[in-house]
């Protein structure tokens, strides 16, 4: 497994400072073997683990929280095809070894190397099935937009993985929309429900547009930024809504009925990916872990001597 990544066993990938924990290559390799990875998958696992150790990800919060986040791994670049990662039908489901085992290797590394065990440093109230494994590739070839990793500063010929903490996944349905506005209203509504964790600060969201919806957006010519700007404009609610639901303290005042609170602030905080099957009017909304202190991190996948 180490040879698959062109690595020595004693190489340090990073640390989790709040836990006094250093992450070393041989321990990650052991967990990749346990997960059932092929050696050529290992560079993806390594890049994901390094991203988890990046200060911007702020590991302890999303990994420990009662919110029970899955660590979502979005893979871009040529390695997708070399290792056979699924970017199409049944995107989040079973059936593809690379998707299943890369995500599993990362979770096992979290448990066994980064001390993230349920009931101790993993305080998930419910967790979610994505905590077993959550890895997929972007369908760059049929996407309306440049690949996610290019949007986030990598070169197209590089491979990269973006790690992102999300405590849920819901599918968003719309079969009739032929233009972006009605389609995206469904997403804006999904992103602004009263049970969302992030009503007190701006965090991130990940949207995965599958074939039919991607095609609607492609035909419109809307850029990623235009899609994000529309969602930010419409993912907002009056303060009074939040107060009536005790998501914010205090009784609603007359001005609270007309004062709106946006759930997202910057277009780059709405991560947009094209992936999933061509058939079906489904896409997905993955709200970020409920705190603005963690950010998605994109790490280049170094294939070493593999």
């Amino acid at each position, binding site marked *: 497994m180490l040879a698959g990544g062109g690595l020595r066993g004693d190489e340090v990938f990073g640390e989790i400072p709040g836990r*006094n924990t250093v992450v070393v290559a041989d321990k990650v390799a052991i967990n990749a073997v346990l997960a059932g990875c092929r050696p050529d998958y290992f560079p993806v696992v390594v890049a994901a683990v390094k991203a988890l150790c990046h200060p911007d990800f702020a590991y302890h919060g999303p990994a420990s929280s009662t919110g029970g986040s899955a660590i979502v791994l979005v893979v871009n670049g040529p390695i997708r095809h070399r290792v056979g990662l699924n970017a199409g039908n049944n995107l989040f489901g079973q059936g593809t070894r690379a998707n299943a085992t890369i995500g599993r290797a990362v979770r096992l590394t979290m448990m066994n190397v980064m*001390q993230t065990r349920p*009931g*101790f*440093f993993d*305080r998930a109230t419910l967790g979610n099935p994505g905590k077993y494994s959550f890895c997929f590739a972007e369908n760059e070839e049929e996407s309306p937009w440049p690949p996610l990793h290019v949007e986030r500063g990598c070169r197209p010929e590089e491979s990269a993985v973006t790690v992102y903490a999300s405590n849920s996944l819901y599918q968003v349905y719309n079969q009739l929309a032929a233009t972006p506005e009605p389609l995206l209203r469904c997403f804006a509504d999904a992103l602004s429900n009263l049970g969302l964790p992030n009503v007190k600060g701006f965090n991130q969201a990940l949207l995965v547009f599958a074939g039919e919806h991607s095609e609607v957006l492609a035909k419109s010519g809307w850029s990623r930024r235009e899609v994000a700007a529309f969602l930010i404009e419409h993912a907002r609610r009056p303060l009074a809504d939040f107060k009536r639901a005790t998501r914010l303290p205090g009784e609603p005042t007359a001005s609270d009925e007309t004062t709106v609170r946006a759930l997202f602030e910057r277009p780059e905080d709405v991560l947009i990916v094209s992936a999933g099957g061509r058939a079906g009017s489904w896409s997905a909304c993955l709200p970020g872990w409920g705190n603005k202190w963690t950010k998605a991190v994109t790490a280049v996948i170094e294939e070493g001597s593999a």
Partner: protein
Amino acid sequence: MLDAILLEQHGVPAVAIVTDVFRATGETMAMSWGLAGYPFLDTPHPIANLRDKDLDARADRLVEPVVALLTR
């Protein structure tokens, strides 16, 4: 918990208080810093939805043990 451990490493007396359901997590944090058995306090869970007077009552009950730990 981590804040208390780090403050004490810098010579500042500190006391961590967790709600009771987080005792195992507090103990895990202490162990990860080589401090198994590190003393800390707890209060019944939850606290976020308490009225002010109930929260004050919880704080009142913690004053004495907090002082005891700070001056140990």
